[in-house]
């Protein structure tokens, strides 16, 4: 049983925190900051106990106000549903398939216990907040809502675990025909459409987030700084923001090509043609941003973004394979290109980028490890 818990910890908890590190960090840092310490303006006018009370206002609200408690539980519910979905998807990955014929040899009660520990491990940030709230509730004399919070949290973990145990003991589900597979069966699928189809099936969330972030940044840029910028600056900075917003999607595109389109490098298709098709893929991916920018007369931003993304991609192909190094590279390049905009040499940089990306592509396309 301990071994199974250890295996589940290695497979699910660690990978969950790794995969969601940035989202969890942003969410829980923001939430946690106000949860443990809500700043109070002019706190010199308050007594020490009043100040502490105001500092812990959010935590006290959660254990005393039904509406806040409900909000907290709604967050918890969404978190647990998503975590459950993540675990089930990970269970279906071929290398984790062994769990379907090993973990379910244990008694159901033991499986449930191991899965509960796994669920609790994933829900750990919520458990920490809950523990802190309970201490505050006891000090301030609130009992009913805290009891309900505990009951709901524990029930959530138990239900989550029960769903996982049921899933683990059922026959492995047959692979369903995917959205692109069902609607485009028999249709010709050119190279430029491959990643679009893959993203529609496997990365809809990432795509939506990238698009939403890019459109939000364009919106803020236009309304906050649009009046102070000339057309050249607006086009260039928009291109940079669109590139930055889509940089994770680019990382995924490169990974997809490396893994699933490896066979394509044995086909008699010239690297020039593949390069053009890759450019076309990115033109299509950036269409929503292109339309938004076009409506603000920033027609050059879209081709500039495509050039920058092709440059980032060429660098990825040259050997940067892990996301952390790539992320630092993107940030560094963003700063350099932003300075280039300030010094009116962005155009020169773009020409250099397109030359390098083309040369790198030709050099590394057939040279992947």
């Amino acid at each position, binding site marked *: 049983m301990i071994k199974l818990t250890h295996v589940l910890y290695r497979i699910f908890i660690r990978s969950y925190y790794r995969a969601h590190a940035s989202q969890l960090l942003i969410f829980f840092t923001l939430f946690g900051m106000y949860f443990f310490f809500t700043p109070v303006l002019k706190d010199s006018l308050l007594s020490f106990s009043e100040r502490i009370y105001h500092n812990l206002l959010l935590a006290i609200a959660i254990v005393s106000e039904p509406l806040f408690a409900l909000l907290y539980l709604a967050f918890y519910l969404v978190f647990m549903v998503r975590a459950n979905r993540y675990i089930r998807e990970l269970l279906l990955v071929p290398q984790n398939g062994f769990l379907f014929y090993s973990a379910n040899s244990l008694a159901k009660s033991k499986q449930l216990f191991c899965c509960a520990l796994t669920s609790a491990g994933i829900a750990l940030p919520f458990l920490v907040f809950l523990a802190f709230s309970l201490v505050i509730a006891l000090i301030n004399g609130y009992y009913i809502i805290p009891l309900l919070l505990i009951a709901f949290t524990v029930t959530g973990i138990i239900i989550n675990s029960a769903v996982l145990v049921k899933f683990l003991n059922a026959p492995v589900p047959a692979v369903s025909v995917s959205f692109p597979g069902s609607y485009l069966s*028999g249709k010709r699928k050119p190279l430029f459409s491959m990643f679009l189809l893959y993203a529609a099936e496997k990365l809809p969330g990432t795509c939506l987030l990238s698009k939403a972030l890019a459109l939000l940044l364009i919106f803020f840029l236009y309304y906050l700084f649009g009046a102070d910028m000339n057309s050249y600056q607006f086009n260039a900075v928009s291109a940079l923001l669109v590139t930055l917003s889509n940089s994770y999607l680019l990382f995924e595109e490169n990974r997809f090509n490396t893994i699933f389109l*490896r066979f394509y490098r044995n086909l008699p298709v010239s690297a020039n043609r593949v390069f053009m098709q890759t450019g076309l893929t990115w033109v299509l991916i950036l269409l929503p941003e292109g339309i938004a920018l076009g409506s603000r007369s920033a027609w050059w931003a879209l081709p500039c973004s495509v050039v920058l993304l092709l440059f980032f991609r060429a660098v990825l192909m040259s050997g940067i394979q892990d996301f952390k190094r790539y992320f630092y590279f993107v940030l560094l390049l963003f700063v350099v290109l932003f300075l280039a905009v300030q010094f009116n040499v962005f155009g020169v940089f773009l020409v250099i980028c397109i030359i390098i990306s083309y040369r790198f592509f030709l050099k590394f396309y*057939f040279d992947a490890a």
Partner: protein
Amino acid sequence: MMIEFNHYSKYYGSREILNIPDLKLDRGIHWLRGENGAGKSTLLRSVAGISGFKGTVVLNGSIDPVKHPVEYRRKVNYAEAEPLFPPFLSGNDLVQLFSETKSADPLRVATLLRELDMNYLDDPVSSYSSGMLKKLSLVLAFTGRADLILLDEPLITLDAAATHTVMAWIETYYTRYNTSFIITSHQEIPQNLCTGRLLIDKKTVHIQ
């Protein structure tokens, strides 16, 4: 001379995997053997043009994968040991893609599909078993007019009937279409099919 290696070397990072100073292979069916991790798949990936290397590999005396990438890939086909294709593509999508790019004879492709009894090609590859996927990758490797076909562990996960069919294909393609083969396999290749034996030992290829 079918294929020639000159000062060939392959590194993963700073670790040298293979070093073949000079090797010439004549037309034939070459059985490439070696321990696990010896570099058999790495060598095949290099020869297929999928993975880079140092030195030169020349096909038919003049066709170089770097200088003539398209022509080289039209003449060299490859089936991976553990094939991976985009999960949403169907077997038909891949057969059509390979037929078009490798200029295959449609009748010959239809014969290959019929002989392996592949009646599941409308389904996406994500729904295939490992044996079904292996059959598909073998059909794709025999699609077109290749001078050299590289088969990495072609017999694993195949059933007895399919194994027999693939052996027959190798013999037919060699005798009728002059196609050469480099085959890695931990299973015995029948004596009558094997014209040359190669062994990877101490990071280099030895002719036995």
